[in-house]
Each structure stands twice: as structure tokens, then as C-alpha cells.
């Protein structure tokens, strides 16, 4: 071997290693290298104004106000007179240390919020004093302002981005705000706009030495887009008032467009609670998981319960479409329906028509359980195997948007539950029949729906067979939305001719049936009341509670303008609370005001409180706690 081999070998080896390392640093890492997140460049942000939000009639719902934060960049902070500084900011020394540590842990070379949302009078004073302290400065921010205390659940709120997101996203820096719930979150990118950036060079003493690349990379801010909601804030406010003292949700939809006119959850909160200095204090109260009122839980979108009697219309429609019944088909009721041989295999019925033939219209108007049990059985038994029959039943129901996320343009939702054949095959190991799950006939049992799903279902009936996916945004920067999800008609699997008898029957409900006490002169309301059984475990014992009250309705009968679902927790029979609420909302929306003859009804509802009932079911937490002591 040549004697010079070793050195040649070493040279090549080291050369390759060094080139490899350069490749790794400059090409592999270099590509991902963000020239901006770098100590030698200072970025100054120019925040655009967040978009405003209006209701469908142009009333301002969400505006902006200015707020000031004290920011800190820990690696620039020099020794300072802590006591004087704390006095200036009106904080404790311990607080100073904690805040500073937190900022340092986040990233010493990135700015983070030191003190949030100064009072306006402090700002002017601090502005003059703060330049003495290196590494601290004041950042102007825009926060939300809500002129009307309503629809907090729809609007949502904005809050600081979490640290993880701020670190990994190019769009956010720590301390910046983003939409956290509701429309604010769903339409975050539109509302936010694009912030402008100005780049500066700086040296290691943090002195700005000039504009970076002569401003070549600087960008101008792009202001956020204004949103016009489909919500009618007058109606929303009125519905919220009607729900005072009651828990539940109301969803009102314009059937011809799918626009959500009102989306009420009760109890709710004032959106201004989540703005400003008291925000964190208020949010702990509002989001306390032990708070039984759950004010941030949107019942209109999330409360998933058996729908009860309104579901009978669904079964009627399916049966008509599948031609297992006609409008003339009759069944007899014997105070209930026997579905098995055992003594307790008997479903009671309150229709009050004993042993005489009942046809569809009467069955819906009087809510006859026996009729729909027979109908359901025929639907399921039409196919050879019950699971096939049930799958077919399921197909029709899901075409109404039940059993899945509807695709509403709000970030929360619940799919509810519509069982299919496989569900029961797994549950009963293939040994089941229509009688096994006969409660599906009357909307109890495994079925679960949310108020917004029911409202959409009602809208589909009002339209005689189609619906538009419900949505809350009508216009973006005054231009109507173009999202095909919301402007293309969705057809159900039931032919439109089968809707007419069902609509007639629903009309009958408000004429002679369970809703007859809540009629409005001059408005033809079609609806269906219902109750939903519910159980709760209190101190270890399963206990049946007062039924949830449910009502779906639309009006007027021809060319409907509003379809809605009302859901009142533990409201009892639908006719006592849900029906008057429905008729008041319909009257308010269609006539603009409540007529003199119905003022009494309005007053009764406004003053009605179910708080006594809710108090009964409060888990006795304190007692358990005190026992421990």
C-alpha cells in the first residue's frame, strides 16, 4: 500500500463528513429555515381590524374595541428595579417572578404577554415610563365588543391562541387572539384577515439597525371580512327571553333557504363576560364542569335525546313511501299495544280511542302509540330479514339529516343516533324482530336527535320533501355565500305527495289536538308535541325524571316561512310549555308583535320557571364532601 494512502483517505473522509454536515444544515434544514424566526430580525406586526358581525337585518352584533398588553422578550431584559417596576404595573413581586418565568419558559427570544389588557388610564401613564425598561413594551390589540347581549352560543368568543399553536403556526404569535367557539371559530380565517409584517434587522444588543432587505418582504395588512348572519337578532332575543328560567334549546329555520333564524340555548351568558380583564375569572365560572346549568353547552346543537312523538311523522312518511299503509289504512287501539307474551310486554297509549279504527290523520293528531307500533312493524317486516327492513328504514331517516352531523357551519354538534340493522344484530346476536325495538315506532328507545336536527326535519316536512343544510352565515362582506353545501337543495327519499296527509295531520294537532290551546288567530300552525323520557343517576340510584318537553312546528301551512324545534328540559307535556313558546315565536316572527289576546300567554311563559324542578335533581355534592371532613 502506498504510504500516502492514510492521509489521502483521511482527507476524503473528513471532506465528505464536512460536506455532508453542510448539506444537512444548509439544504435539509435550510429549506425549512424560517428567516423570520431568527434573533437578527425583528418583526413588527400591523394588525388588521377583525371583521364585524351583523344579523340578517344589518344590526351590529359584534364590533371591536382597543386594548393594550404589556409584552416582554426575556432575553432582552436587563437588570431592573423590580419593586419600582411592580409598582408601575400594579402587580406583586411574586407575580412578577411567575410571569417572567412563564415568558422565559415559553421562549427567551420571542415576545410573550406579560400583563394583559391594561386599563385605559394606566396605558397613557405606562407608555411614558416603560421605555426605561429594556425588553418590555406595550402592544396594542383589538378585542371584541358586543353591543347586544344575545346569541353568545352562535357568536362564540375569541381567546388567546395556545402556546403549542403559536409556536407551530405561521399565522399566530403568542398572545394573539383567535376564535374559540361559534362563528368566531368557524370563520376565523375570514374574520381575522391577514396581519401586515414589517421586518427590521437588529444586532445582538437588540438595536434595530435598519429595514430588512429594504422592506422587500414587508406586507400590508388585509382587513378581516364582515359577516352577515342568518340570525334575526330580534327573534333570537325574544326566544331567549321566553326560555328564561327553563333549560333547553330552540332552533328556528327558514325552510325555503335553510337559514337559521334563531339558535337558542338556555341558560346562556352575556358575550361581554369573555372580554376584558375579568375574562379568566368569568370563564372559570362559565366552564366549570360541575355547574349543572352548563351555560357554554349549546343545547340547541348538542343535546341529544329521544325525539318522542314528532318521530311518528317520520314513521308515517316511511310507511307511506314504502306503501305498507295508505292514508285509509286503519288499526285499532286497545289502550295500548301488546308486543310480546309476557305480562309487561305492553306499550300504553293515551290516544283515548278504544277499539275503533284509527286512520293516519287521527293517529298523528292524537299521537296513537298503537297505530305507529303496527306501522313500524309493517315497515320492518316488509323485508325478509328484520335487519334489512331496519336498514331500509334507516336509509329514509338519514336522508332527512338525522343520525349524522348535519354539516351546520358551527364548530360543535352531535350526530345523534339512528340505529341500523347491524346495531341490533350485534346487540341481540341476530335474534330479534320488530317487536324487540318497538319503541323506535314512537321515537323512544335507541333513537336520539338534537334540536337542530329536529328543526331541519321539520323544515323538510314544511318543504314537502327537501331541505337546505342549516347555516348561520348569510353574507360575507355583503356578498351572499357561495358554498355549495348550503345553496344546493337536498332531496329526501320520500316523495312529496306523501307529505300532504302528514302536514294535514300536523295542522290538526294545532286545531284540535295537543296544541289546540296554543293557536294563533290568522296563522295556520302545523306541529307535533312530544315528550322524551329521561333518567338520571342521583346518588347511585337510577331515577326517572319529569319528561323533556319537545315540539316541532312550522307556519304558515302553505308556503312556510319558519320551521322550528323547541326542547325544554324536564318541561313535562309538550302542550304546557313547548307549545305556547312555539306559538309565541311564530307569531312574533310572522306578525312582528304579539297580539293583545295572546299577551296573557306571553306573560305566563315569561314568568314560568322550572328552577324548582331542576333543584330537585341537583346531585347532593356538598353533603358528600362534608361527610369526609
Amino acid at each position, binding site marked *: 500500500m502506498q504510504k*500516502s494512502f492514510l*492521509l*489521502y483517505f483521511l482527507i476524503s473522509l473528513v471532506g465528505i463528513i464536512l460536506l455532508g454536515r*453542510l*448539506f444537512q444544515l444548509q439544504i435539509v434544514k*435550510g429549506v425549512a*429555515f424560517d428567516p423570520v424566526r431568527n434573533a*437578527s430580525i425583528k418583526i413588527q406586526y400591523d394588525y388588521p381590524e377583525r371583521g364585524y358581525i351583523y344579523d340578517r337585518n344589518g344590526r351590529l352584533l359584534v364590533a371591536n374595541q382597543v386594548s393594550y398588553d404589556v409584552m416582554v422578550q426575556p432575553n432582552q431584559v436587563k437588570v431592573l428595579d423590580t419593586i419600582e417596576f411592580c409598582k408601575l404595573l400594579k402587580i406583586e413581586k411574586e407575580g412578577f417572578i411567575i410571569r417572567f418565568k412563564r415568558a422565559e419558559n415559553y421562549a427567551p427570544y420571542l415576545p410573550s404577554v406579560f400583563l394583559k389588557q391594561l386599563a385605559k388610564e394606566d396605558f397613557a401613564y405606562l407608555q411614558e415610563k416603560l421605555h426605561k425598561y429594556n425588553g418590555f413594551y406595550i402592544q396594542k390589540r383589538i378585542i371584541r365588543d358586543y353591543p347586544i347581549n344575545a346569541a353568545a352560543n352562535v357568536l362564540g368568543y375569541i381567546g388567546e391562541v395556545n402556546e403549542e399553536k403559536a409556536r407551530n403556526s405561521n399565522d399566530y404569535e403568542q398572545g394573539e387572539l383567535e376564535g374559540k367557539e361559534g362563528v368566531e371559530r368557524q370563520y376565523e380565517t375570514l374574520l381575522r384577515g391577514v396581519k401586515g409584517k414589517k421586518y427590521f434587522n437588529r444586532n445582538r444588543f437588540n438595536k434595530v439597525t435598519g429595514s430588512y432587505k429594504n422592506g422587500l418582504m414587508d406586507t400590508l395588512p388585509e382587513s378581516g371580512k364582515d359577516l352577515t348572519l342568518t340570525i334575526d337578532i330580534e327573534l333570537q332575543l325574544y326566544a331567549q327571553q321566553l326560555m328564561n328560567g327553563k333549560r333547553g334549546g330552540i332552533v328556528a329555520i327558514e325552510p325555503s333557504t335553510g337559514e337559521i333564524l334563531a339558535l337558542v340555548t338556555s341558560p346562556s351568558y352575556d358575550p361581554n363576560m369573555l372580554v376584558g380583564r375579568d375574562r379568566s375569572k368569568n370563564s372559570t365560572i362559565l366552564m366549570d364542569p360541575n355547574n349543572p346549568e352548563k351555560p357554554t353547552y349549546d343545547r340547541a346543537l348538542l343535546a341529544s335525546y329521544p325525539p318522542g312523538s314528532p318521530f311518528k311523522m317520520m314513521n308515517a312518511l316511511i310507511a307511506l313511501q314504502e306503501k305498507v299503509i295508505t292514508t285509509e289504512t286503519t288499526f285499532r287501539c286497545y289502550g295500548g299495544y301488546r308486543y310480546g307474551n309476557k305480562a309487561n310486554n305492553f306499550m300504553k297509549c293515551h290516544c283515548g280511542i278504544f277499539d275503533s279504527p284509527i286512520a293516519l290523520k287521527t293517529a298523528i293528531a292524537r299521537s296513537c302509540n298503537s297505530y305507529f307500533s303496527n306501522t313500524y312493524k309493517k315497515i320492518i317486516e316488509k323485508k325478509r330479514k328484520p335487519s334489512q327492513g331496519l336498514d331500509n328504514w334507516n336509509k329514509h331517516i338519514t336522508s332527512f339529516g338525522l343520525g349524522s352531523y348535519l354539516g351546520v357551519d358551527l364548530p360543535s354538534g352531535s350526530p345523534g343516533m339512528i340505529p341500523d340493522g347491524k346495531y341490533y344484530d350485534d346487540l341481540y346476536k341476530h335474534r330479534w324482530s320488530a317487536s324487540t325495538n318497538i319503541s323506535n315506532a314512537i321515537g323512544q328507545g335507541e333513537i336520539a336527535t338534537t334540536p337542530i336536527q329536529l328543526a331541519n326535519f321539520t323544515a323538510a316536512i314544511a318543504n314537502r320533501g327537501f331541505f337546505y343544510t342549516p347555516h348561520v352565515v348569510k353574507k360575507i362582506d355583503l356578498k351572499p355565500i357561495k358554498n355549495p353545501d348550503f345553496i344546493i337543495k337536498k332531496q329526501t327519499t320520500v316523495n312529496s305527495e306523501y307529505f300532504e296527509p302528514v302536514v294535514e295531520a300536523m295542522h290538526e294537532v294545532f286545531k284540535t289536538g295537543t296544541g289546540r290551546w296554543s293557536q294563533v288567530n290568522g296563522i295556520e300552525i302545523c306541529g307535533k308535541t312530544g315528550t322524551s323520557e329521561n333518567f338520571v343517576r342521583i346518588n347511585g340510584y337510577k331515577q326517572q325524571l319529569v319528561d323533556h318537553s319537545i315540539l316541532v312546528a312550522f307556519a304558515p301551512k302553505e308556503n312556510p316561512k319558519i320551521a322550528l324545534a323547541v326542547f325544554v328540559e324536564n318541561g313535562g307535556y309538550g302542550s304546557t310549555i313547548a307549545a305556547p313558546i312555539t306559538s309565541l315565536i311564530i307569531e312574533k316572527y310572522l306578525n312582528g308583535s304579539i297580539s293583545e289576546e295572546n299577551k296573557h300567554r306571553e306573560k305566563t311563559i315569561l314568568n314560568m320557571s322550572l328552577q324548582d324542578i331542576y333543584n330537585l335533581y341537583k346531585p347532593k355534592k356538598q353533603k358528600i364532601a362534608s361527610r369526609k371532613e
Partner: protein
Amino acid sequence: MRQEKNNIFAGIDWILVFFYVIFVGFGWLNIYATSKTDEDTQIFDFTTKYGKQLLWVGLSIPLIVFILFFNSKFYERYASIFYLIAIVLLLLLFPFGKEINGAKAWFNFGSMSLQPAEFVKAFTSLAIAKLLSDRQYNLKLVKNQIKAFIVVFFPAILIILQPDPGSALIYLSFFLVLNREGLTLNYIIFGVLSISLFILTILFGTEIMLIWLFSILTLIVIYLIFKGGKRLIRFNWHKILITYLMVGLFIYGTGFVYENVFKQHHRDRFEVLLGMKIDTKNIGYNSYQSELTISSGGFFGKGFLNGDITRGNFVPEQHTDYIFSTVGEEWGFLGSALVIIIFMLMIARIIYLSETHANKFGRIYGYGVASILFFHVTVNIGMVVGLLPTVGIPLPFFSYGGSSLWGFTILLFIFIRLDAHKNYDW
């Protein structure tokens, strides 16, 4: 044989000169980029770093002429004298040296200072070339090995005592020279093995290392028994035992030295380098900033005078030891890779030319030059790109500083002189 011409530039290897000019010129541009401030307008301002460096660069032209002026025989004949002068200079530092950064490594003349260690490398190369070129000299003999070690390591020890262990580390490069002249490779292998074991022990801890090494040793022993039969065991069992014992002692010794002899700041450096600790502020700051600076250059670099991290002075010592990070930032992968390639070509060229020398003295000196440059480049760039620990030695021809520039100029041009003569002398 041709007669030697009077022209001092005759026979010069222009390729090496070309590389030299590129490095010095490009090096100066980078020093300019690191030390220029926006207020500066004049290049010939000797109060600035780049102005001073320009002076040194200018003065190296007469220095080169002066070196080339002498006959190559002159360097061979007076090699010992140069070496003695170098030793005396190093010794004089102890009473007269000026302390900078904790080391008495500098002579101070008014506004100028001189670092003898930078020149001693060239003179030590001359001395070892002189010693080894003796026809009677056989490096297989331990006596001769010791002589060579003394010549090499005496200046190194003086430099360690300053204390400037980084600069002294370079003297290890002479092992490569000695190896070329017949020194067994075992020293180098042993050294590399020890360092590897040392690092692995720190990384994995003594117990795991012992388990691994003993398993590997046992596997080797089993293999040997199968291959050599029982005879091997009968004769070599003590050797095998001693191997086990030595390995065990070394590993435990490492653990002990690391925990008890090393100071915390040594341990921190090791742990940051080995990635056991992440540190971007204190010990790790230099490496972190330097890596970041190089990364930010990307493929094409940001362009001359456009390196914003360089302009912001974020990398400490960027004009001296960390000059390569400027290359990385402003000239990108293209520029920095080219610098590495040219360095490797230059060293290879020196080795290639050395091997053509009929004269042993020239060849050995050439090896000295190549090894020293190789070590400097490897350790310096290795440190700047974060592969090696922080050792404060300059990048040849690039780093700011008259002593360093002149030291390497002398080192290289004595070789060019010797090389120019190889065809004429005998």
C-alpha cells in the same frame, strides 16, 4: 540537471499559490463582512478589523518574496536554529507575555501583538524534517521514536503551559508525519480507540459499556479458540485476562476521571456536544448560533454583506475562529462546500508534491504542512458546524489575525520554496 535560475519564482507550484490567493482574498472579504459597520466607508481604515487585516495581507507579499529569496538548502541547514529560536520565543512568553483570554500567548508591541505559537508550527515541521531526514534514522527504534516525540511535543507542552491547549492539540498532527516515515500505526489506532471508548462511555455509562465490551471480547475469544484450538488458550490465557482487565480499568477509569477529575464546565461541554443536553444560551450558545447562521444561508446564501445574523454580530468570535459561519450564511452551501473542497484539494496537492520529492527533507516538511493544515481545517470547521467541541484554533488563511496569517504563509511558502528546488538540487 538544469542549473538553478536566479529568478526566485522559477519552478514555483502556481496551483498552490492560486489556492493561497483565493483563500486570503475570500477570507478578507468575509472578515470585511463580519466587521463592517454601516458608518464605515473607507477600506483602508487601520482602526477597523478589516483595515488591519488588509495591512497584514499586504505585508505578506514582501514576506513571501523574502521566504522565496532564500535557497532551499538554507532552510534545511538552519532548521535547528529556527527551532531553537521558536523554543526561546515560547519560553520568553512566560516572563514577558501578555495575557489575553486567560493565556499568556502574546507579545505586545504597542498596538500590535504577536502570537509565537502560530510560527512555531512551521519551525517544528522544519526541525522534525531535519531529524527524520538523516539516512541513519530508523523510526522503528524506540530510542528514535522518543527523540522525535521530544522534538514535536516540547513546544506543545510549552503551549499547554501558557495555557492554550487548543493550539497545542495541533501537534498531534505530527503523528501522521511520523507514520509516513515508518512509525507504527498502533499509536494512532490506540489513540482513536481510546477517544472512541471514552466518548461511548460518557454516552452510555460504565455498566452498559462493560457489558458490551466484555461480550464482544468473549465472542472474539470464542472465535479464537475455535480457530486455534486449545493450544491458544494454553499459551495466551494471561494475555486474554490482561485484556479484560485493561478494558475494565479503562472504562472505570473514564467514569472516574469524568466524574471526579473533570470540572462541571468540561462535563457541560461534552454533554452539549454529544447532544445529551440542549443548551442554546450558555456553553451551547456559540455552536447553536453558528449552526443557525450556517443553516440560514441555504443553498445559494444570502449574498455578500447581506448576512443578517452576521451583521447583527450574533456569533461570537466570528471574525476569528467562527469565520466559516459567515461563509455559510452569505455564500450558502455553494460557497462553503467550495471552500472545503479547495482546502482538501490543496492538502492533497501538497501530499502529492511531497511524494515527488527525491529529497527526504522536503517530503517530510511537506507532510508536516499537509498534516497541520488538515488538522486545523478539520478541527475548526468541525467546531463551526457543530460536530466537534469548541476548540479555539483559527481557520488557515481565513481567520482574522496577523500572526495566524503570517504563520500559515510562512508554513506554506517554505514548502513552495523547497518544492521549487526539488528538480535542481541534486
